[in-house]
């Protein structure tokens, strides 16, 4: 065991150390190749300029390489597959796309995805924000946050078990082991099969993701909240603003950037979500989403062409967010 631990530690050190060495070394090297200290003024300035051209790339270089290999290359492969047949061997033109347009399941998935996109990011961000603010200054805030964070730490499989015990349905008159139905029964209602109630079952599934992701929003937003200059809140207090007004008019606008980040991230996550659907309903009872459909075609239908086509559709859905973010980034530039 000790040997294993030692070898694990060595492995970890090599991994992390290698990374540190790169950044430190590359910068060092740049300084050595184009020295700025201890050379004549003009050369130094020239060298500095050269450093200025190169250094950004040293900084983002590793990121770019990793991103290209691990994401861009697969995207290209996906793109390639989307024009090919199930095995990825024969070119089939746009037929996968035209199939998608005509497929009832695909349209259903798009509709559901829209529902998810409308509800989940908004709910997570809002709840996360509210909780972050409320827990910010109470003495047991850390504890409360940890409890709300906990769902995030539970694996999807664990989460699906948890929700099984929430939504579990037993026939009317039997002992309910799902707490929701137990409550319904307790208040004299009739137990429901939550996951198969048409249309609304989407929302019951969303609840799960909201339950998980609120912790995510909360963590990020609560670190942002702490960056708000205290004085602005004090000033608003003196201006007579109520806690609500301070929240909406002073705090929220100041962390707007972070809210946007959280919102964007969860939106994208929603586009990709399939674990919940897969484990809870596998898209049955009209709860399918694009990502699950993609998964289905990839690994159940083993049709790479169609799977890839759906993946491309998912990726296209993010274009508006990208455009919006480009705008945002260029605007920041002006302000700086």
């Amino acid at each position: 065991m000790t040997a294993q631990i030692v070898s694990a530690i060595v492995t970890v050190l090599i991994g992390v150390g290698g990374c540190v060495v790169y950044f430190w070394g590359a910068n060092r090297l740049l300084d050595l190749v184009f020295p700025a200290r201890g050379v004549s003024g003009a050369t130094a300035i020239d060298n500095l300029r050269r450093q200025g051209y190169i250094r950004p790339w040293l900084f983002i270089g590793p990121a770019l390489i990793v991103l290209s290999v691990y994401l861009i290359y697969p995207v290209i492969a996906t793109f390639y597959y989307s024009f090919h047949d199930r095995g990825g061997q024969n070119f089939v033109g746009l037929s996968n796309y035209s199939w998608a347009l005509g497929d009832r399941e695909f349209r259903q998935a798009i509709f559901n995805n829209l529902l998810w996109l409308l509800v989940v990011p908004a709910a997570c961000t809002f709840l996360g924000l509210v909780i972050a603010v409320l827990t910010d200054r109470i003495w047991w805030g850390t504890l409360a946050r940890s409890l709300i964070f906990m769902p995030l730490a539970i694996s999807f499989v664990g989460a699906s078990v948890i929700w099984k015990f929430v939504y579990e349905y037993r026939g009317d008159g039997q002992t309910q082991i799902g707490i929701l139905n137990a409550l319904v029964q307790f208040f004299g209602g009739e137990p429901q099969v939550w996951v198969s109630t048409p249309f609304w079952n989407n929302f019951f599934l969303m609840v799960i993701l909201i339950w998980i992701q609120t912790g995510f929003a909360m963590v990020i937003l609560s670190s942002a909240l702490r960056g708000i200059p205290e004085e602005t809140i004090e000033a608003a207090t003196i201006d007579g603003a109520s806690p609500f007004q301070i929240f909406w008019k002073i705090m929220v606008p100041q962390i707007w950037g972070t809210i946007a980040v959280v919102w964007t991230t969860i939106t994208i996550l929603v586009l990709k979500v399939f674990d919940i659907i897969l484990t809870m309903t596998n898209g049955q009872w009209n709860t399918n989403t694009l990502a699950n459909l993609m998964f289905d075609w990839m690994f159940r239908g083993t049709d790479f062409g169609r799977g890839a086509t759906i993946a491309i559709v998912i990726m296209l859905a993010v274009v508006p967010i990208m455009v919006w973010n480009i705008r945002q980034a260029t605007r920041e530039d002006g302000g700086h």
Partner: protein
Amino acid sequence: MADLILSDIRKSYGSLEILHGIDLDIKSGEFIVFVGPSGCGKSTLLRSIAGLEDITSGELRIAGELVNDVPPSRRGIAMVFQSYALYPHMTVYDNMAFGMRIARESKAEIDRRVRQAAEILQLTDYLARLPKALSGGQRQRVAIGRAIVRNPKVFLFDEPLSNLDAALRVATRIEIAKLKESMPDTTMVYVTHDQVEAMTLADRIVVLKDGRVEQVGSPMELYCHPGNLFVARFIGSPAMNILPATIERAGAPTAVRLTDGAVAHAPIETPESAAGTKVSFGVRPEDLGIADELDGGVLFEGKVDYIEQLGEVQLVYVDLGHAGEPLIAKLPGGVPVARGAVIRLTASPGNLHLFDGDGRAFARNGATAMAA
């Protein structure tokens, strides 16, 4: 009606006590200025009044009501922060309008008052800008504007003018004075480093040092009758010259002998017991004059060390020969003095100050002093 009563206010950060029991009685409608060295606790005291800091002990009453636990928004105050505390996401206009919007004033009224304040503070051109696109002084003006558009019972200003240029400073100072005049019932508490501001605006000045009140009084009182050495040196610029001396004859007037032998007669009453004790002798630079021009005898004689020309006046630094700080004299700009030349200075007896070994001023027969 908003009088402020502070009784034994203490404030600690952790184990570090910053305010050591402040007692203060501010009458409704008074204009109070806090002065004191940097870090003495002015901002802390102001923030405690505002309710932004929990006071560690003591009682704070506004309009008779104990407000220790009343939230800032319910204390009826407006405040200008030393660090501005502008809302970074709001335009100048919105920054100023915020408080009134919260109070649900009518649109028209808000607009009227914001524009009026912007006019006064020369911010009209910047109303649509965000704080980050403003210069330091402009930001400060927005902070002031934000306070004056509101209609509080108590105004709190923390160094509101420190980033403004002289002209604007005078103008704003006058505006604040006018504001005060137009609301005789509004109490104002004002922190400043600027002597002129303190002198011109204050009904009463509170001098703080290391979290304690040193003296409270009207500007003239503090200037003419500083209660102790600290206040004497703190009020007036350049500071009062302080020299060691020995009481030669106690009583009224008192005769003191300076280190270099000159004897000064001050219309100050000292107890008999004080005779022979070491005291501090003080004279303000502006009360000094060239000896032969004035009636009194020569009090100081020394070599001119350095001259600072300030236009209408000049500051003359005189080396009295013995170790210690140079004596500073403020002489009219026209008086010809040359660096290195010997200069003889004197002052009228009414302008002399005496402090005992603990730095406390000897009581002076006020009236005589003023007349002299």
